[in-house]
């Protein structure tokens, strides 16, 4: 398969655009902060922290080793925050405890991967893969719970449904890219690398769009005035 060279340009633009697009859900979250539930506040905080890490990686003059650690830290923080959303959102205490246990397990695995499995690698593919499987699984379980419990009539307007949809789509779309990340990095294939980047940026735009919608739909339940009716 031959990829056209303009992909490099488009991929670069889209990557920058998707990095900047994070400001949209963050601004909306800031404006609607009083109305946000705890899981949504955690999501907004997570977006702010991970965006700060991305900015630091882009602007800071980091050595390859430091950059590798930073990206590994990014993956861990992102997983703990997104997982933490479900630790707050699930209805049953047992589910919440299980999520916390799984997150602790993930943290242990990430440290094991960094220290032994992929020691010195520029990208920790195992941790990324486990992250994707874990978050897709948690989001899937939460979506199932939402469908069964029906907290709202129109699920498509439910903030955490939108956020979970964003998480499922982002990590489903990027799981294979992370699994084979090592191969792509070592191949020194500019067009291939940019094609992967284009795909990731596209999925990221979708995710941020859904997060924006999630914050947009976040509002307190309307308090009706006490009206006496005898109908």
């Amino acid at each position, binding site marked *: *398969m031959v990829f056209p060279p303009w992909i490099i340009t488009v991929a670069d633009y889209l990557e920058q655009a998707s990095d900047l697009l994070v400001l949209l859900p963050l601004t909306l979250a800031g404006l609607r902060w009083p109305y946000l539930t705890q899981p949504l506040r955690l999501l907004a905080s997570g977006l702010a922290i991970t965006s700060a890490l991305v900015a630091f990686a882009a602007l800071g003059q980091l050595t390859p080793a430091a950059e590798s650690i930073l990206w590994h830290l990014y993956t861990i923080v992102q997983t703990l925050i997104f997982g933490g959303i479900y630790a707050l959102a699930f209805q049953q205490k047992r589910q919440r405890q299980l999520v916390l246990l799984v997150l602790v397990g993930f943290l242990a695995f990430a440290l094991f991967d960094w220290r032994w499995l992929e020691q010195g690698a520029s990208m920790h593919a195992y941790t990324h893969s486990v992250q994707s499987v874990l978050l*897709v699984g948690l989001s*899937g379980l939460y*979506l*199932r719970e*939402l*469908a*069964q419990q*029906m907290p709202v*009539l129109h*699920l*498509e307007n439910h903030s955490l*449904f939108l956020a979970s*949809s964003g998480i*499922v*789509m982002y990590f*489903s*779309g*990027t*799981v*294979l*890219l992370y699994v*084979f990340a090592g*191969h*792509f990095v070592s*191949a020194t*294939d500019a*067009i*291939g690398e940019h*094609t*992967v980047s284009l*795909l990731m940026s596209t*999925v990221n735009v979708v995710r941020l769009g859904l997060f924006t919608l999630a914050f947009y739909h976040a509002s307190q339940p309307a308090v009706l005035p006490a009206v*006496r009716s*005898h*109908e």
Partner: protein
Amino acid sequence: MNNWLVPVLLATPVLLLLALGIVAFVLRYQRRLLRQQEQIRQVREMAQQQALEAALLAQEDERRRIAADLHDGVGTTLAIVKLHLSTLGQPALTQEASALLDQAITEVRRISRNLLPAALQKFGLPFALDALARTVPSDGPTRLNLEQRGQPRRLNPHYELIVYRMVQELLGNGLRHAHSDRIDIIVDFGADTLSLHYTDNGIGFDTSIIDTQPLLGARTGHGLTNLQSRVKVLKGTLRYQSELGTGSQFWISLPVPYITASQAPAPLTSLL
């Protein structure tokens, strides 16, 4: 070019589509659950409606049976006893007994008529309502004004009976409990709805007590419950407004289907 790139690039959209499919499935699943819940709710509501209707019809059947027994059994026996008394040929001795018998026969007739309004079956709702209004003495403590508007006409016999019972219930409650000197009832025969508007200037009642637990010795709201049941059977709406000392108002609106002349109930032989 990296050997892994093409298969990964092909598989990634597939995974993305799968994720999209999961989201779409969840939405569809929720819609289906909502539809099922709505159907279950409708079936339950219909079952409740049918049970309520059956209970009301059973009540009316029982009233009819008691009315017939009173009229044909007790009423006839009393008439025969009176006949026997008259054959004794001692009017001085039997006059008082005969007067008491007349009183008993009249009472039996009145009870029987209340239990089964013959005028309703024979001549329909508009006539029966007028007859009901005439039972309230014009020189009594409460003045009744029953007005029929629109196009007074015959309805389905079940509808007529239920509407009649509603008016009877409202009027009975007003006369017994409201202590008002004026009661106004407007029955409006619309094109496809029948509206009742009841007003009295009596003592009124505390709607919050009716809405919650009835107090001991207070008006229990059974009349209102009966009214609500009947309105529910006809899929109508009931609204009321009352405050202590300011009288009461009731608005009832019922969807009433027209019946053609051929569907009109045939007049029955009067019981009394």
